[in-house]
């Protein structure tokens, strides 16, 4: 399996182990997140592989910088007085704070989160507006960055 998928699946496992009590339904991985609006009447947490940058760390070690999205989505009425969206922002910060502790991933020991960003990937994704301003879906995005070292092919002598 690819490094991106391994890391994304490990993040799903971690989220479901640590935040199960906060989730309405378990987090899942979706490479192309696709929901019906009615599915978002309850909280959905989706992990999506974002990108990978590879570089050579030493003559024998290659390192992958893998980024994954964690999307927090739920319907919020357009006249929400923050009472529905505040808990979603709190959850996003809790998830961010957990990964910022740099605890190794349970499913991938030795792999830790190097940094994170929450809701910082462009205003257009912070609050996506569905159905042309008539029904809103709150979409909070966390971008988690992991460094994964693996043996590389030996360069020619």
């Amino acid at each position, binding site marked *: 399996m690819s490094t991106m998928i391994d890391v994304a699946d490990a993040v799903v496992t971690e989220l479901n182990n640590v935040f199960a009590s906060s989730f309405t339904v378990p987090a899942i991985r979706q490479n192309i997140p*696709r929901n019906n609006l009615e599915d978002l009447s309850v909280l959905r947490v989706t992990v999506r592989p974002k990108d990978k940058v590879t570089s050579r760390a030493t003559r024998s070690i290659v390192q992958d910088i893998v980024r994954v999205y964690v*999307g927090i989505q739920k319907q919020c009425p357009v006249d929400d007085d923050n009472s529905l969206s505040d808990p979603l922002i709190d959850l996003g910060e809790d998830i961010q704070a957990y990964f910022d502790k740099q605890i190794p991933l349970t499913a991938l020991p030795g792999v830790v989160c190097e940094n994170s960003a929450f809701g910082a990937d462009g205003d*257009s994704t912070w609050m996506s507006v*569905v159905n042309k*301003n008539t*029904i809103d879906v709150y979409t909070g995005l966390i971008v988690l960055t992991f460094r994964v070292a693996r043996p590389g092919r030996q360069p020619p002598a």
Partner: protein
Amino acid sequence: MSLADQIAADVSQVFLNTADFAVSVTVTRRTQTTEPIAVIVGSSQFQVSNEFGFTQVETRDFSFDPSEYDFGDGAVLPERGDFVEDAGFRYVVTPPAAGLDFYKLDETRHLMTIHTTKTGSA
């Protein structure tokens, strides 16, 4: 009877007849619910996307006799946030786009149509 009169008569006798084209739904506003209303249903689906992914949206238009839009104190006009329960799903009255009306009345004033969005289970 003129053709116009005949068409107007057909609205209630044929189109809004649950034995023919119509189905029966209820509409709720906060804690008040209408009696079952005979409606004609039209639906459409579309998809919206952002950087993260896609969301599939289903909208429905419900057409009915405006005199039946009654929560117990006489017929009223639809309000944003009213919702229709149909076949186990909830459809919330919303404008089709920001700034547009979410209901319309036909020229003969025999048929009102509301625009709704499917938001979840009833």
